[in-house]
């Protein structure tokens, strides 16, 4: 197993390098620059700015400079959020986004898994239809509709929870954003678990367990092991997306996460910030893909990596 993980980590390096290269040149060929304001800056000021940020060098030269800095773990200064480096922005925002995303993921797996299992055990009953309907509901309602509705109902009408804000990570401020983030994931997990559980329950070994009259929790434990595999492969990329923040949820609830940097960085041509987000997402995706493969081997002993 360890050699496999090491080999995968090594093979991720060229992938990461290619991603950095593609993103670097893509953002540079985009029209506009980080210092293009409504009112153009004076030529001399512009020239100085460009020199400070090394934009006056040739593009290949800048690329080499950036990759060199990246290898030393330096993401560079932000062009748009003056006085901050990309590392500082991420250091303050990433814990927020990861807390929210991690909780949402946990909620999604627990609730979605339970709902899906219950629905599979009672296929074509009222409970089953309720879960399927709820799943479709959670998938089709955009989160920017759910969020304001929840804010109005729980924040203003009932006044149980704060409408927004981070508040140092207080539990009460976390409830609504986590629900909004988790809702579509609950839907997907419930649907996937239901579908694969139905298949697993029909398989010979589970039918034997049931015919022996074993208690339900034993049957569930054995059936889930096989049924959880497709969910694991879905959850890899989904976890990467959730943990790196959501623009919509963070802007509606006013949370200081990293999600907004994806939009603000690209819109303001904050080159280093964009590259930072690209590297961040790529690392998360690669790590979680590896994690999925490892989990696969742990859950399903038939899977072997030589």
């Amino acid at each position: 197993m360890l050699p496999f993980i090491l080999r995968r980590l090594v093979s991720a390096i060229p992938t990461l390098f290619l991603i950095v290269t593609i993103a670097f040149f893509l953002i540079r060929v985009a029209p506009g620059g980080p210092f293009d304001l409504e009112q153009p800056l004076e030529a001399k000021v512009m020239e100085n700015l460009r020199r400070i940020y090394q934009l006056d060098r040739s593009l290949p030269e800048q690329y080499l400079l950036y990759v060199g800095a990246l290898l030393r773990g330096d993401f560079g200064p932000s062009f748009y959020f003056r006085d901050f480096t990309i590392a500082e922005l991420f250091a303050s925002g990433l814990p927020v986004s990861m807390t929210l995303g991690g909780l949402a993921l946990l909620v999604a797996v627990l609730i979605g898994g339970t709902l899906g299992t219950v629905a599979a055990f009672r296929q074509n009953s009222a409970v089953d239809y309720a879960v399927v309907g709820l799943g479709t509901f959670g998938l089709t309602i955009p989160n920017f509709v759910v969020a304001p509705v929840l804010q109005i109902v729980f924040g203003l009408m009932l006044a149980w929870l704060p409408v927004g804000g981070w508040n140092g990570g207080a539990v009460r401020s976390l409830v609504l954003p986590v629900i909004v983030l988790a809702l579509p994931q609950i839907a997907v997990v419930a649907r996937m678990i239901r579908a694969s559980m139905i298949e697993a329950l029909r398989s010979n070994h589970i039918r034997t367990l049931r015919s022996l009259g074993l208690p339900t929790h034993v049957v569930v434990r054995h059936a889930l092991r096989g049924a959880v595999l497709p969910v694991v492969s879905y959850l890899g990329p989904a976890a990467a997306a959730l943990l790196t923040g959501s623009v919509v949820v963070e802007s509606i609830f006013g949370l200081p996460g990293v999600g907004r940097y994806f939009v603000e960085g690209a819109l303001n041509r904050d080159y280093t910030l964009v590259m930072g987000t690209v590297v961040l997402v790529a690392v998360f995706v690669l790590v979680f893909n590896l994690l999925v493969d490892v989990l696969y081997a742990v859950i399903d002993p038939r899977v072997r990596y030589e």
Partner: protein
Amino acid sequence: MTDAAALPVTAPVVGRSLWADARTRLLRNRAAVVSMVVLGLIALACLVGPALTGHAYDRVYPDYVRAPASLTAYPFPEQVIPAAERIAARARAKAEGATVANGAVRLALVAARPIDERLLAYFDRSDLFGPAKVLERQEEGRRLVVEAPIEYRTFLFGTDSNGRDLLTRTLIAGRVSLAIGLLATVVAILIGVVYGAVSGYAGGRVDLLMMRFVDILYALPFIFFVIMLVVFFGRNFVLMFIAVGAVEWLDMARIVRGQTLSIKRQEYVQAAQALGATPSGILRRHVIPNTLGPVIVYMTLLVPKVILLESFLSFLGLGVQEPLTSWGVLIAEGAKNIQGAAYMLVFPSLFLIATLFALNFIGDGLRDALDPKDR
């Protein structure tokens, strides 16, 4: 002859193709059939509806800003006389004895000085009245008896914060959202199917390289891609969504590649190869048609995904430009006005959610209908 007629006519056994089979099973799925009808009705309403509502989607009614949804026509009886009095005040006169009769308002304008009759144009300029007529001139023009017809308008879904009819705008938005969903999906499927089929059929090193490229694109943040596209194609909305389709093909390519890998081992493909068919001919005739089942299912799920994506872009302010609109734009506006005017959120959301629900059920129905294991 009677004997012959009594004999049962043995019709030749007609084989059922996979598609005919799937169609019967799909039509037996009630949720899918209802969804197809609902989707058809929504599409029809969006196509012909805007011409029938009696309002242009970009016509602004300044007197009906945020008018709540109502089945009865505006103006309401209690609104008429205050409105007429306000207009009188603008014409620098006092209104006296205003009465409503036969769809017109009649009132006397009184002023200290003779009233300039050109100021009566204020009646016509208002959204509530037609051109005013002077019935009587008294006291040397210091008192005018005026009659103005009331113009009734219905706003079934109310009006938005600029005073535009929300029903017309919802339908126009539906055109935009549905067109975008279809356009991007078609592009994604074209690229994905061809790429996946070629990669799977070629196999070996070509396959490895092509799939590594897909992996790399997967690891790029999606928002980054989309915003780059907005930057490049910002002015041209159609072009942008062709580009979004060009980003969305990754899943499709993976699905089709997986299918192709199993199809190319089938006997009929080997037979075609033995007969000397060209690879492109085999791809077109044998491989791609056999991958279409999962492709169609994925398509019905991709359309809602793209519609949601457009809504998301509009929420960020990167979507369609005013006065054109989409469901996402309307919903984002409705979410802003949720406290005073909840109907602005409710109606566009209903349309969007109904469409997405229908597409989801059709997708599920198609998956069940095309699954050969599930007879």
